[in-house]
C-alpha cells in the first residue's frame, strides 16, 4: 500500500478517536437537554470542577485551604494522604451527585415553568459560580491528573503496520494514542450503560417519559424534581469522565472548561436530543475536521479544525435543522 493511503487511514482513525472525545463532552449536554429542555452552559465547567475535585481527593488537598489560611493565618494545604484513583473517582461521583441535588434545590426548583432562555441564563450563572467555587476550593494552579490511563502511541500497532507500505517507501507505522483507545472503550461502556439504564430500569423509563412529554409524565405521578436530580447527577458523572480523559493530556486547569466548545458542532450535527446522535455527530466531526486539516490545511495555512467543525455542522443544518437524530419540533399556531 502507498504511504499516502496509509496516512489517510491513520488520519481517519485518529479522527474517529478524536470524535469519541468530543462525544464524551456532548453526551452531558444531550442528557440534560433531553430531560429538561435546558441547554446547560455549565457542562464544560462541570468537567473542570469534577477533574479538580478528583485530583484534590487523590492528592489529599484541603478544600478552601487558601481561604482558611488567609482568614485564620494558618498554613494548611494537605491532609497528608494519597488516595487510590478508584477511591478518588468514587468520592468525586458522590460530590457530583451532591452537586446535582444542590442545583435542583437552589436553582431549578425555583425556575419551573420558566422560559427555556431563563433556564439557559441560569446555567450561565451556574458556570461562573462553579468556576469561582472550583478555584476557591482547590486553587487555580494547574494540577497533574494521573489515574493510570496509558498515554502515547501503541508500539505494537506501529510495528505491526510498519511493513504494510510499499517496499522502499518511508513509512513509520500507524499511530494511535492509547489514551484515545481507552476513551473509546469508556465511551462505548458509557453509552451501553445509559441505554440499558433507560430501557430496563424503572427510573430510566421515567426519565424517558419526562423526555417525551413533561406534562404527561407529571400526570402519571413521575416526580420531575427527582428526575432532574438524576439527570444532572448522570451528566456530572459524564463530565467527570470527559474531564479525566482531556485532563490527562493537558493537566487540570481552566482551559478544560473550554472543551465544551468542541461539543457544540457535534450537538448541532447530531441533534440535542439523541445519545446516538452525540456519538455519530462526534465521529463525523472528528473525521471531517482531521481529513480537512490533512488534505486542505497545509494549502491554506493550517489551523482549520476549529472553524471547519462548525462549517461542517452548518452544512448538515441546512438539510436537517433538527440535526441528524434530533426530534423535529412542530409548533402549531
Amino acid at each position, binding site marked *: 500500500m502507498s504511504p499516502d493511503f496509509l496516512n489517510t487511514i491513520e488520519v481517519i482513525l485518529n479522527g474517529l478517536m478524536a470524535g469519541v472525545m468530543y462525544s464524551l463532552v456532548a453526551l452531558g449536554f444531550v442528557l440534560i437537554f433531553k430531560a429538561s429542555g435546558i441547554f446547560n452552559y455549565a457542562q464544560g465547567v462541570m468537567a473542570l470542577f469534577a477533574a479538580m475535585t478528583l485530583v484534590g481527593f487523590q492528592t489529599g488537598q484541603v478544600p478552601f485551604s487558601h481561604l482558611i489560611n488567609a482568614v485564620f493565618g494558618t498554613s494548611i494545604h494537605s491532609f497528608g494522604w494519597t488516595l487510590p484513583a478508584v477511591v478518588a473517582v468514587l468520592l468525586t461521583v458522590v460530590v457530583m451527585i451532591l452537586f446535582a441535588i444542590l442545583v435542583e434545590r437552589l436553582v431549578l426548583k425555583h425556575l419551573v415553568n420558566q422560559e427555556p432562555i431563563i433556564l439557559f441564563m441560569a446555567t450561565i450563572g451556574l458556570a461562573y459560580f462553579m468556576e469561582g467555587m472550583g478555584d476557591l476550593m482547590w486553587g*487555580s494552579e494547574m494540577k497533574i491528573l494521573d489515574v493510570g490511563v496509558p498515554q502515547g502511541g501503541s508500539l505494537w500497532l506501529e510495528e505491526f503496520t510498519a511493513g504494510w507500505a510499499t517496499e522502499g517507501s518511508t513509512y513509520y507505522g500507524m499511530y494511535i494514542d492509547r489514551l484515545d483507545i481507552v476513551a473509546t472503550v469508556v465511551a462505548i461502556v458509557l453509552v451501553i450503560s445509559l441505554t440499558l439504564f433507560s430501557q430496563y430500569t424503572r427510573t430510566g423509563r421515567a426519565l424517558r417519559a419526562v423526555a417525551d412529554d413533561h406534562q404527561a409524565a407529571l400526570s402519571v405521578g413521575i416526580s420531575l424534581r427527582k428526575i432532574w436530580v438524576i439527570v444532572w447527577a448522570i451528566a456530572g458523572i459524564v463530565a467527570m469522565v470527559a474531564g479525566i480523559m482531556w485532563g490527562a*493530556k*493537558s493537566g487540570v*486547569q481552566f482551559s478544560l472548561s473550554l472543551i465544551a466548545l468542541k461539543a457544540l458542532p457535534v450537538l448541532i450535527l447530531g441533534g440535542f436530543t439523541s445519545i446516538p446522535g452525540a456519538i455519530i455527530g462526534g465521529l463525523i466531526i472528528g473525521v471531517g475536521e*482531521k481529513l480537512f486539516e490533512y488534505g486542505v490545511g497545509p494549502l491554506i495555512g493550517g489551523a482549520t479544525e476549529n472553524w471547519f467543525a462548525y462549517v461542517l455542522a452548518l452544512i448538515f443544518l441546512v438539510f436537517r435543522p433538527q440535526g441528524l437524530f434530533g426530534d423535529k419540533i412542530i409548533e402549531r399556531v
Partner: protein
Amino acid sequence: MKGLKAAGIAMVAALTSTTAVADLVFPSLSYRTGPYAVNGIPYADGYEDYLTLVNERDGGIGGVKAKVLECETGYNTQKGVECYEATKGEGALVYQPLSTGITYQLIPKATADGIPVHSMGYGRTSAKNGKVFSHIFNYPVNYWDGASHAVNHILDVNGGDIAGKTIALVYHNSAYGKEPIRTLEELSKKHGYKFTPIAVDHPGQEQKSQWLQIRRERPDYVLMWGWGVMNQVAIQEAANIRFPMENFIGIWWSGSENDVLPAGIKANGYKALTFHGVGSDFPIFDDIKKYVVDAGKAAGAGDQVGTVLYNRGLYAALLAVEAAKVAQEIHGTKDINAAQMRDGMEALVIDNAKMEALGIPGFGPEFSVDCGNHGGPGLGAVQQWDAEAGTWSLISDFAPSDMDVIQPLIDEDSSAFATENKIEMKECA
C-alpha cells in the same frame, strides 16, 4: 484648650499630608482568572512580591513607597485596555501588560498619554526602535531575538552547519504566535534549513493533526511559540510520538514548570529559551522569604517562589524599580511622574555589579538602553528540563541574536509604522 490642641494637631497633619510625597504607582495588569491564569498568577505574584520587598526592606524606592494597582484582564485585550483607562489617572508610572494583544492596543494610547510601556520579551518587536516608539520599551529581548537564539542553539549543537536540516515551528495561531515566522524564514535563507510553520488554534487543547504531521515529516527540530494549555498539550503530544525532547525548543513563554509537569518523566530534556536565570539559589530569595512570605505579605500562597514565571514577574518589577531609581537621579526628585520614568527607562544600565548589589548576581544579562535602542542587545540563553529533579538548568551563556538579519527587519517594520502613523523619527545623539 484640649479642643484647640486637637485642632492644631489636625491642621499640622493636614499641611504635612499635602506636602508628603505620593506613592510611586506601578499598575499590574494581571490575569488570575481565565484560560491563561495558570501562567498569569505566578507572574503577578513575583511582580507584586518584589515591590513589597522593596517597601518592607528598603523603605521604598529612594524612600518613596511603591504601590501596586492590580487590575484583572483575564488576558482579554478589551479588558486590558479598560484596566489601562481605569488606572492611568492614578499616577501610573509604567505598564507591563503581559500580553502582546494588549500591548499592541496600548502603543498609541500610552504614547499619546505620555506613559511608558515595558513589554519584556513580548509585544511589538520593532518597538525596539526608540526613534519611532518613544514610549515603548522591550528590553532585554524580543521575539525576533528569540527566533535567532533558537537557530543559534541549533547551529551550536550541529557544529555551525544546519544546511539541509528541517525545522518546524508549532505556533499559537495569533499575532503572538506568528511573530517569529518572518525571522525564521530569513534565517532559513541564510543557513539553508527547510522551514515548516504549523499553526495551532486557540486554546490548543487539541493538536492531534499537527503532531501527526510532525510524525510523518520527521523534522530535525521543532520550535514552539505557545502559551497556556497549548504548551502542555504540545509537550505531551511530542512525548507521545516519541519526538526527541532535546530537539524540541520552546520560546520563553513555553518554558515554565507548568508546561512540562503534565508529561511527567517523558518531558525530560525539553528545552526552552530564557532571558533570565532559573531557580531560587540567589540571596534575594532569602529576603523575599524573610520580608514578604514569612511576614504574611506575599501576593499569593508563597508556593510559587523560584518558579520560572514568578522569577520573570520579579525580574520585571526589578527592572521597573531600577528605572525609577535612574529617573529619580536624572530629575533630582523622588516623586517622579510617568514622563520622568520614561527618561529613566531610556537611560537604564544593568550590569553585573548592580545585579550583585541587588542580591541577584548573574540572574540576567548585562544590558543598556538608549534613545535609539529600546530593546537592549537581545541577549538570551537556553534552559533544559530535568524531569527527575523537577528543575530547569541553564545550558548556555546569555548570547546575542543575529542582528545582521534582525536589524533590517526592525528598521523596515518600524519605518512602515512611522509612515502609517505619520510619526516623525526622533533624532538620537
